[in-house]
């Protein structure tokens, strides 16, 4: 799967995207966030508080309970501030 990061999430990780092999125990967007947080460092920082972060699955807004699949494009970002 492809993981994308935007705004301060991208800055804290020092990268905007990466490829990721989905572990079988990761079922939801929340599972994925917690799994990534366990990597520590910038990941622990980015995923420390999911209330401050949003997730999109295959370019559509999703909630943390949404299921994720091996070929999904998952993006993590702060609440949007365009316009």
């Amino acid at each position, binding site marked *: 799967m492809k993981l*994308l990061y*935007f*705004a*301060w999430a*991208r800055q804290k990780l020092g990268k905007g995207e990466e490829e990721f092999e989905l572990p079988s125990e990761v079922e939801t967007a929340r599972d994925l966030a917690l799994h990534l947080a366990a990597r520590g460092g910038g990941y622990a920082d980015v995923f420390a508080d999911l209330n401050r972060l949003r997730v*999109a699955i295959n*370019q*559509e*807004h999703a909630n943390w309970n949404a299921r994720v699949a091996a070929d999904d494009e998952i*993006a993590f*970002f*702060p*609440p*949007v*501030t*365009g*316009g």
Partner: protein
Amino acid sequence: MIARISIQREDFDAAAEVAALSQDRAGIGAVATFTGLVRGDDGLTAMTLEHYPGMTEREIAAHVKEAEARWPILGATIVHRVGTLKPGARIVLVAVASSHRAAAFAACEFLMDYLKTRAPFWKLEQRGEDADWVAARASDDTAAERWR
């Protein structure tokens, strides 16, 4: 309905966009436009806009479709700039054409409220050496909520 959605680094010409939107279309009696600018308050020196290519266009297109379902609109143009902009620079244009003004005004405001709360853009404000990501505003969420 004709919809033009552009995410671009370059500046835009609002008058030219309105002319293109309404050209040769006799049924159009009203075009409502909104132009957003970089506000240069609190010592702001630059603003950098980031977006999620692909999802941004999809989100905006979905909201244009929703506006079309709610009001009898005849065309819409949305231009949103990305990259680094100086105070006073144009950021966003929303122009909506309809037979009469009520639908054009309402759909323009609707699209702007949804651009602010759903379209994946993020603003980084620079004040001299300091750079801070803009936090989402509850008042923008409230503005978008009223259309539900």
